[in-house]
């Protein structure tokens, strides 16, 4: 009986801890913003910290994220044109559906997945290493809250970076899809844009940005959670990184499903 219930109990416990960490992060973010408003010195320090994190999380991910999304855009056209030609004997739908899938799904999910692998694993490894070397405990000893000083800057940086990257990614994927369509199907860029714009609506852009905003918050929370709960030595850090990447990816897909569902109901 215990063995059957154990995974569910573990899942509930972990979910509770993550939610607690999320609420804590939001609370400390509010405190930080208040401090920034009250003190110029603090404002500069926090600004510097956030910009540094955005640089390491956002700018350093540009190449990998945009390379990935560029190929995803191309793959979507190749695959769709093949399948639609096979089933419908027409490729007229390709630009429209490709644009829809790029703007509604790929532009947020692909960068988020890449960020979960690259940034999430980095945060887990960093925090996990600090955990196993008792640096976290040392911070607590000198009255520095690890959530406030370790998680909040990464939380902000990851959220902002993912929204920015997602915005650029949608354009890059659209452009590569257009290029492949022009080359493979002989549809001119003007026709591609006109057909695509007939399908996509402004709300598709807002849904994409909202998803990026949500995934950007989820990745550092899951990563930090596994970092704080790292046990053992280097092996423990590796295990924590693996869990962080796997569960981030899983949560991204699950949340994507619910957000998409809600969007189809309410928009």
């Amino acid at each position: 009986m215990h063995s059957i219930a154990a995974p569910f109990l573990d899942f509930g416990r972990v979910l509770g801890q993550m939610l607690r960490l999320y609420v804590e992060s939001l609370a400390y973010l509010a405190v930080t913003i208040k401090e920034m408003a009250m003190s110029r010195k603090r404002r500069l320090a926090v600004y510097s910290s956030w910009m540094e994190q955005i640089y390491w999380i956002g700018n350093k991910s540009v190449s990998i994220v945009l390379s990935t999304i560029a190929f995803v855009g191309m793959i979507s056209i190749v695959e769709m044109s093949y399948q639609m030609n096979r089933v419908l004997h027409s490729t007229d739908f390709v630009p429209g559906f490709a644009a829809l899938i790029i703007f509604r799904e790929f532009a947020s999910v692909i960068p988020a997945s890449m960020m979960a692998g690259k940034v999430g694993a980095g945060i887990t490894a960093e925090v996990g290493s600090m955990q196993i070397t008792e640096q976290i405990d040392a911070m607590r000893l000198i009255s520095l809250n690890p959530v406030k000083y370790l998680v909040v800057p990464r939380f902000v940086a990851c959220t902002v970076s993912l929204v920015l990257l997602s915005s650029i990614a949608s354009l890059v994927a659209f452009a590569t899809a257009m290029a492949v369509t022009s080359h493979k199907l002989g549809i001119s860029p003007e026709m591609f844009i006109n057909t695509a714009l007939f399908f996509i609506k402004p709300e598709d852009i807002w849904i994409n940005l909202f998803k990026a905003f949500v995934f950007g918050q989820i990745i550092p929370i899951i990563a930090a959670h596994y970092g704080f709960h790292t046990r053992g030595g280097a092996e423990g850090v590796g295990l924590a990184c693996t869990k962080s990447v796997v569960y981030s990816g899983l949560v991204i897909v699950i949340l994507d499903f619910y957000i998409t569902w809600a969007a189809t109901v309410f928009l």
Partner: protein
Amino acid sequence: MSQNSKVALLFIAAVAGLVGIIFLLTGGVVRNAATLYITYNFAGGVQTGTPVRVAGIQVGKVRKIEFLGGDPAQDTHVQLTIDVDAKALESIREDSQFYINMAGIIGERYVEVSTGSKDKPQVQPKAVIRGVDPPRLDQLISQGYGVMGEVMDIIEKNRGKIENMIAALDAFLTNFDPSKFGDLAKLVGNLSHLVAALDKDLPPLLAKAGPMMDDLGPVLKNAAPMLADARALLSDVRGVLKDKNMGDMLKQMISMLDTADSMIKNADHLLGNLQFVDENWIRHFLQVEGVRAYAGLGSPNIPSGSKPVDPPPLKRR
């Protein structure tokens, strides 16, 4: 480049990308655009941002769609506000037509503007133009369904007859003698000759009929007032007959005529009976009747108690 600059660049790139996408989606802004108002009675499928094309090239977009109201007396119910490139406006003349077309199998709509005649003046910006309503394919399809349903009903009700007809046709075709094709060919040939003859003879016939028709015109023209007079006369007669006194009078006259008829019959009978009367018979009759009268009254010249002598029997001639 510093870290902050690189982050700022990322921000700028992302914001520019976002603005670009929103710019595209909201239809953007057509530079040097002229606004035209196109009215339709039905503009199915057109949306804000629908492209406007002149000679197949996109020159603008639909900016606004307004419902003008459901007044049945109004000719049009929908007004499209379109922005057209000023250069393209030169091709749009007063006789240009504004169609709502469908492109491709996905059914995306666009407003197609036909280039007008060169001799017509150019359409002025902010002009209100009546567009050409697109065909109601939805209605056509639904009516088609109705017709198909009725056809199916007819087929279902007459299934036996149709099967018999098909069987008869099948039997006819199966048993058809190919050698009869010659006869058929002759029949068709004869028909062809007949048609040719008619083609030759009919025009003179029709030419002859022409003057007759010309004469018929005045006759018909005169017949009209005659018929009107006859109608008036009949109407008067009907009015007289409806009068109550006239009815009574007619009844009395009929009664009198009946009486007269009866009298004539009696007189005729009497005359029939008196046909044998002549001078001798009258004399004899008067003698006999006179004797009787005398005897009855006691005349002094006739002795009392003497018997009257019977007149001779009447002889019918």
